[in-house]
């Protein structure tokens, strides 16, 4: 078997055996079901508040709350909640092993550090993908059960209404973009993980970076405006671009490009450091 595949299998095996891995899935399940139950009972009033002005000018025919709207709303958890859950695992991939001493154990084996680091990157990506897929599936299945299908109404730069048969490709694009953002998070936490021996630091560090940058972006500080498009957290919401009535492909490509650049940069820094660092723990 190709050594790289073996290494990836080992890493996946290790994270599957850790209870911490399942915290993310459990948390997502709770968030999804909890929010959907809340919307089931209280959603009408919330939606009414959002579209009150429209009701003044129009007669609205058709249901607003459906699986598509719920999926859209839940995708906003990609801004803070999901990054935290991803860090819990990816931030521990190297620092956790360093603090427990098992890093020493595996680096005595006849594999290059690059391959070992790469296997951890890929494991982080697989985990992130699994988490996002799980979120999508859970949201869709429970939403379909509770609310049924219907047109998607998105209050984005006005009101965009998408037919039920026009949303699947949009959500595919949106989830893909969301996954890319989460891979940036995984890469950042893995990079920090390669620098430290304490497993808490990469988790807290990554989350802190995300929260601070999000606050700055949300407050829309004019001072930072020129650099904001190049700050990776600003792209956590770029999945919403797939819900513009006419897609702005240039903006989407730019967001993809910037995030890929961050992924490459974070991983390159982490890899170079990991290759050259002395294992003292």
């Amino acid at each position, binding site marked *: 078997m190709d050594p790289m595949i073996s290494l990836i299998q080992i890493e996946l095996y290790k994270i599957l055996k850790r209870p911490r891995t399942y915290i993310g899935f459990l948390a997502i399940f709770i968030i999804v079901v909890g929010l959907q139950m809340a919307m089931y009972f209280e959603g009408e009033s919330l939606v009414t508040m959002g579209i009150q002005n429209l009701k003044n000018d129009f007669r609205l025919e058709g249901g607003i709350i459906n699986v598509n709207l719920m999926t859209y709303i839940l995708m906003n958890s990609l801004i803070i909640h999901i990054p935290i859950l991803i860090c819990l695992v990816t931030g521990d991939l190297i620092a956790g092993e360093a603090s427990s001493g*098992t890093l020493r154990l595996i680096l*005595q*084996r*006849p594999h290059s550090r690059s391959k070992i680091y790469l296997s951890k990157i890929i494991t982080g990506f697989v985990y992130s993908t699994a988490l996002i897929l799980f979120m999508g599936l859970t949201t869709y299945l429970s939403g379909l059960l509770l609310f049924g299908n219907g047109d998607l109404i998105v209050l984005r730069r006005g009101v965009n209404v998408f037919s039920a048969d026009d949303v699947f490709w949009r959500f595919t694009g949106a989830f893909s973009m969301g996954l890319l953002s989460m891979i940036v998070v995984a890469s950042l936490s893995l990079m920090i993980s390669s620098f430290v021996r304490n497993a808490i630091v990469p988790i807290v560090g990554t989350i802190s970076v995300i929260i601070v940058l999000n606050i700055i972006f949300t407050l829309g500080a004019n001072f930072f405006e020129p650099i904001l498009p190049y700050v990776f957290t600003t792209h956590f919401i770029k999945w919403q671009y797939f819900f513009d009535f006419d897609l702005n492909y240039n903006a989407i490509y730019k967001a993809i490009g910037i995030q890929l650049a961050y992924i490459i940069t974070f991983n390159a820094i982490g890899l170079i450091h990991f*290759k*050259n660092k*002395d294992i003292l723990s």
Partner: protein
Amino acid sequence: MSLLISTNLTKKFSDFTAVNDLTFNVNRGDVYGFLGPNGAGKSTSLRMVLGLIHPTSGTVKVNNQTVNKTNRNYLSSIGALIERPDFYTNLSAYDNLKILAKFSNLKNKKRINEVLEEVGLLKKANVKVGSFSQGMKQRLGIAQALLHQPELIILDEPSNGLDPQGQIDMRKLIQRINSDLGITIIISSHILSEIEQIANRMIVINNGEKIVEGDVKQLMNSEQMKVRIKVNQLNSLKELLKTKALSFDTYDEFVIVKLKENEISSLVNLITDNNISVQEVRQLRTLEELFLKWTQ
């Protein structure tokens, strides 16, 4: 024939030099003692052999393969237990070895049970390592080092944290590995009597520099040691020693004389030839005293 050769090995950290110009070699079949006080650079040196730390300068060759950042193949012939035995505590002993076997591209799964049996842990194969005692973890550490049938095993403080029986068991295991399996062993230890008992060659380092290197017995023989002698006629012995210009101390009913090892039998013969009955002859000087002397 040399299995491992270190030439001018040096490691400088930002604020101090941990290993300085260290040259040593380990022959195939050796049990090679690596000695030094705390902070002498033993672990750093061994970590450089394993590629865990990158040397500032100098080289290490294992099986004629130079250790560097890109060449990792030489690790196929090395097993190691560096510092404490750390494992995935949420996994069983078997699962831990299964992971490490996969790391070593080991296809024969039976080997896992073989090494567990070798170290006496077969019955605990499915127990989570988190519940293992220190002794069990140390043995599991040896097991993982043996897993891929290496030519060289490096053991850093293998008896650390073990009770006296555990230390004896560990010593016997190491000796068996060397004698039965023909595996070369480098052992770093503070339990010097252990080294004395099992090592045939050794190096002593202090402040990152080599102090002495060589055959254990030769190093001990080259140094005088204290011999305690008990006789039935103490005064006669004292007179005899004075006539032979041998310095001595008296302690209770004993006389303590400084001698080299190969001089002991001559002295005993001299005493008995002078009709003094010898009741006890005991060697007091050990490797510990040598070690302290060398590292002062």
